[in-house]
């Protein structure tokens, strides 16, 4: 069997709407330097590097890892880039996990970033659509996401208020996050009255667009202790997909996330997620998706996400706090978000989260996803 793999060092940039003071390469370097310092390592002690970014069209540098390699001093090493849209960071971490678990390396650095101020985001996303059948009506990802929410309203009777509660919760939590750049408390009324973008999605249901990078150092059980006495061990990790235009695709539940969760929970010994997880970090590209994930991850029965968020259980002082970091609502450098969520989950079980440490957190659930709302994964971390 493979090696045990732990997160032994983390680092992220102070994310912002527009970082004009650094290039993409400089942005990556900031996160890498912090992660290496946190792991008490130099680049010489890293065996392999995985770089992850959102789609190349986001920032118009093709295969940017080949440029970034110099800025992080990784010349000569095994360097490869993995991409998976919004879930790129998580997909990169998965690739890094298998490099360590499969014995290819002892220590792997995973760095993920996006510098979204340098490109045309929704234009780039529109090129996801099939060139023959999809681009006639392609308008970024928002219309597609609105369909998911509308389906919940029609079938489950969920309301705009339910998703607004997600936005209110996450925006409040992000105020204490030192790396977030949107820090403003809003009310449910504010969200409901904000500008409609693609109904039922409104401006305050949407996270910001950010420049940012995040890095983690993964190490096997043999060398992890050089960096920390309390690694965040990856007890299970998976990232699954559903085929592009499958007409049978469910808009209620994310099937690939449910499949990934089943696999990960089995590996990690999770039989009652609501009771066993101390904290959850989710990647919510729109507020409504957090509701979908509650159900797909088994935090509540199917169809009851609106009741879960309304109950307060996912608040900081609830029994299953979700996104104490503020999630994407505080900062959203898309390709980096999967690694940011892993960092926030890892530091919770390491007992040193910088936003809101959940007292006594031992087991964390981390979710990420991307593609055309069809690539979804999760991981279980514990100290």
């Amino acid at each position, binding site marked *: 069997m493979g090696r045990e793999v732990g997160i032994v060092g983390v680092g992220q940039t102070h994310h912002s709407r527009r970082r004009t003071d650094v290039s993409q390469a400089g942005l990556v370097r900031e996160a890498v330097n912090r992660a290496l310092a946190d792991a008490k390592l130099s680049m010489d002690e890293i065996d392999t590097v995985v770089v992850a970014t959102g789609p190349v069209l986001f920032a118009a540098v093709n295969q940017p890892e080949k440029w970034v390699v110099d800025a992080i001093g990784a010349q000569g090493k095994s360097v490869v880039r993995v991409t998976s849209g919004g879930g790129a960071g998580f997909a990169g971490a998965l690739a890094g996990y298998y490099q360590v678990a499969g014995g290819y390396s002892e220590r792997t650095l995973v760095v993920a970033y996006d510098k979204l101020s340098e490109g045309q985001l929704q234009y780039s996303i529109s090129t996801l659509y099939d060139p023959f059948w999809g681009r006639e009506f392609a308008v970024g990802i928002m219309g597609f996401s609105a369909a998911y929410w509308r389906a919940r309203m029609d079938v489950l009777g969920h309301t705009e208020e339910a998703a607004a509660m997600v936005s209110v919760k996450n925006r409040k939590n992000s105020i204490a996050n030192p790396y977030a750049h949107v820090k403003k408390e809003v009310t449910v009324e504010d969200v409901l009255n904000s500008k409609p973008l693609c109904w039922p999605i409104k401006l305050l249901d949407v996270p910001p667009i950010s420049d940012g990078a995040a890095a983690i150092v993964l190490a096997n059980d043999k060398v992890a202790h050089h960096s920390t006495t309390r690694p965040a061990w990856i007890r299970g990790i998976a990232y699954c*997909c559903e085929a592009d235009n499958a007409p049978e695709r469910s808009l209620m539940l994310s099937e690939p996330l449910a499949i990934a969760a089943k696999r990960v929970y089995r590996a990690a010994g999770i039989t009652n997620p609501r009771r066993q997880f101390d904290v959850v970090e989710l990647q919510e590209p729109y507020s409504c998706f957090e509701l979908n994930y509650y159900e797909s991850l088994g935090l509540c029965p199917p169809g009851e996400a609106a009741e879960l968020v309304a109950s307060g259980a996912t608040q900081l002082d609830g029994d299953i706090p979700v996104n104490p970091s503020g999630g994407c609502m505080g900062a959203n450098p898309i390709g980096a978000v999967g690694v940011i969520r892993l960092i926030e989950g890892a530091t919770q079980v390491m007992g040193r989260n910088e936003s809101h440490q959940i007292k006594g957190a031992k087991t964390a659930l981390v979710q990420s996803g991307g593609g055309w709302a069809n690539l979804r994964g999760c991981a279980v971390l514990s100290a």
Partner: protein
Amino acid sequence: MSMPRVGIVSTSMTQLRPAWDSAQHIDLISAVVLDVFKGTGLTLDDVDFIIDSGSDVLDGRSISNCGFLGALGAHHKEEARVEEDGLWAALYGVNKIRAGSSSVGLIVAYSKPSESRDIDLYWGSMVEPFYQRPVGFGQKAALGMQAQRYFAAHGIKDTDAAALVARRWAAAAEGGQVAIDAVPDADTVLASAEAAAPLTDLMISRPVDGAVAMLLSTEDIAVRLGRAPAIITGIGTSMETHAFSARSANQLESVAKAAAMAGAKAGWKPSEADVAEVSASSAVGELLVLEGLGLADAGKGLDAAMSDKVNRSGGALPADPLMATGLVRLAEAYRQLSQPHPGADAPRRAVVHGTGGVAMQTNCVFTLEV
């Protein structure tokens, strides 16, 4: 800690053509994904994961793998996109199986550069954007300078490069996997348009369309399937500095590093391989790879290149399906080891090489054994 060894169960490849204008990406991909299972006893249900290589830039589509998940057979499975040559996708697949969480994986790489109006833009968008892009630095300029230095240092002539190119095209034509209208002789290679002095167009690898699929599994499954499995015994990869001017002249250090990594795991040196299947962006690039692998001393790559053990398939010069070329080399090496020509000395060890980036910035080496 014992981890399973990983073997190749089967491979499938479309013909490599300058333009598959009657087929879309999904047609090329689904053709090889359907074919790769034939005769194996395995079906898509047995596949634990899919890893694919392709380029959003070449495809003109963001997260293009999302558009091809159905064709890849990935629905409800774990899928990953490596935006690098397919040999790196195979590397990922080997790690997944060795880690013990999976038994069978499907690796797919594809390319359709014919849909790009100007392939130089693909390369140009890869160079550093502030200082290199404005002056028009790109793949051809880099390969031309690389060749000039090599010629000057080792007394190699353009006629030598032309002879190598003609030999590769002839081998590819004989193999039948590459669509070739007319095999160019050395004079034709020399007479083709100038790409970047001293290289002519035909001395630079020809972009082609195509797809390749490969089933990997644990050794015990590969053996039980009753075919001749080939085992991947060593892997290494290394990326050089992006700054072309800061790279070592007349050597690809990253090839030597990758070869050393792979050789250390395999327990033998790539120079001891019976056959070699290597990628290259230019005729001189191929010589540099052979020298980096230790198949020839510095400046002597041409002797190795003209030997019978190197690139029996024709290599990348006549057919370079960008992002799939290295996986094609692995498939070709597997074929040579598992189905040796009758009467020939059966090869038992192969070294396989893939590359990526401007002037071959990153390189990957596999060792394969039967």
